[in-house]
């Protein structure tokens, strides 16, 4: 009796250890490809990085010395314009949810729409921006790309803004109101500044997300081998360049695609890391 119990116990312990070990191994495996990607990216791309690579315009295949200046500038213009369009309206909508709508039916509808919109594939948003901007203007443009990216960042910024503002203690609102400050000024000058670090985190996360998007730019910003600063012209962007070069049959373009990927991933990772550091600061302050 005692003996069988003991055997059973031994078996349970062994089984426990086997399964836990399996879980640990399974958990480690997916990290491998992710590290391989980063490693290969730097291994293959690092040789294309040079001052010229950043400062020159693209060269035709076979000609040495081509750079990605136009794509870097284009990415900054397109993403910057998208933020200019998307951020103010998102913050206002976040303010609506946390300061006015709260638990109302309409506010829940807004929340639901934002959540649903986060799941809409980026290629579909590209089609929508095509219909809204490219068709009426009659040509591809950086502006159309920015509209697509602005649409993509709205749900992210709306929801983080709301969450952050809800964390602002009510006694601060009351302190301001009790001084005779109108509600709208209370929101703008007390609530928003108190939550500003968190709101900035949300914006950075959203910008990091859209900076690497390719699909919504395919039929909006379209790409452009030349340098342009005009948002009403087709414009190149890093993700577009990477896509076009890697799908081309030219080996030296592939090489440049790797180099451009290092630049893009550095931008995206820096934005992400900055947002985490800020987020940690918010958590630390509480």
């Amino acid at each position, binding site marked *: 009796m005692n003996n069988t119990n003991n055997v059973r116990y031994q078996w*349970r312990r062994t*089984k426990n250890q086997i399964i*836990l070990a*399996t*879980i640990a191994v*399974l*958990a480690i*495996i*997916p*990290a491998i*490809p*992710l590290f*391989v*990607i*980063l490693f290969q*990216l730097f291994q*293959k791309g690092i040789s294309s990085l040079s001052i010229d690579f950043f400062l020159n315009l693209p060269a035709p295949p076979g000609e040495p010395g081509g750079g990605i200046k136009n794509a870097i500038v284009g990415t900054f213009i397109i993403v910057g314009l998208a933020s200019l369009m998307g951020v103010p*309206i*998102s913050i*206002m*909508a976040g*303010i*609506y949810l946390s300061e*006015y709508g709260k638990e109302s039916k*309409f506010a829940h509808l*807004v929340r639901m*729409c934002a*959540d*649903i*919109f986060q*799941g*809409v*594939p*980026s*290629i*579909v948003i590209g089609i*929508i921006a095509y*219909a*809204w901007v490219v068709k009426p203007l009659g040509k591809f443009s950086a502006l159309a790309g920015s509209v697509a990216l602005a649409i993509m960042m*709205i749900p992210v910024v709306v929801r983080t803004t709301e969450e952050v503002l809800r964390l602002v203690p009510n006694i601060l609102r009351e302190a301001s109101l009790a001084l005779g400050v*109108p*509600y*709208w000024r209370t*929101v703008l000058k007390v609530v928003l500044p108190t939550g500003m670090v968190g709101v900035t985190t949300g914006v950075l996360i959203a910008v990091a997300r859209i*900076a*690497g998007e*390719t*699909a919504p730019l*395919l*039929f909006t910003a*379209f790409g452009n081998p030349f340098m342009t600063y005009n948002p009403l012209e087709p414009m190149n962007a890093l993700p577009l360049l*990477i*896509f076009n070069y*890697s799908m081309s049959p030219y080996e030296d373009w592939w090489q440049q695609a*790797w180099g451009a990927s290092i630049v*893009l*991933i550095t931008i*995206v*990772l820096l934005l992400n890391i900055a947002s*985490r550091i800020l987020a940690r600061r918010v958590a630390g302050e509480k």
Partner: protein
Amino acid sequence: MNDKKLSLPSKIWDDVFRYLAFGSGLVVILLIVASLITLIIQSWPAIKHYGLSFIWSTDWDPLAEKYGALPFIVGTLLTSFLALIIATPFALAGAIFLGELAPKKIAEPISFIMELLAGIPSVIYGLWALFFLVPIIRAFQMKIGAPPYGLGIFTASLVLAIMILPYALSVARDVIKLCPNDLKEAAYGLGATRWETIRGVILPYAKSGIVAGIVLALGRALGETMAVTMVIGNSSTLPSSIWDLGNTMASVIANEFNEAQGLHLAVLVEIGLLLFIITVIVNLIARIFIIKTRV
């Protein structure tokens, strides 16, 4: 002395600001409504012309104006579910490992790195897969006697699996972490081993959250475009095996939209509309599971 300045109509600004905020909230709703309407209007010629048969028809020949979306619907479902099947065990194991087994000192930096990697743009996954994964798969296909394209449904699924894994994992991990300590301690108190506690207490507790994570990941996979477009092979025939070349709904739009005109364009928009509807439904389902976890 200052009270005079105060007697300005402060109420008006209060109203203006409130309406601005409300209007911005309204924009979020209108955005989704307007998107839907836009997609319907732009695809109307195709909807009118082909009706529902568009969904079952397998012929895709823009020159002959024959458009059937079935190859792409199948391509999308096949790649997404294959990716899910590949990713789920790893995601679940990773979630248990990071959420329950690993000490905080190990779990936190790993989670941090995972979240950063989840931010890698999909075009970079595509680039990597094109030049690294494709040759490996090609070699493997030669070995097993499958057509050695390297590209194709299976390759696309594999990239998708790598891409969606962090999403499924982090949602599941967060719910597993939420499991209250006294529940776990009760199980340990009864003499349960660590695994018995995980299986008997933690997993049942986190079930809805885990499902939500998987469904959210499915939503991502369904709509993922660039990486898939780069490695799936861009073929518009109905795939007959996972080694075949193919196209997903997203990749056919990415590949053909810029050259398309007239009815062809409308058909591509209709595929976009279909994708929009499918992903909205999938995300609604995920939301239901998320709400369940809160209860």
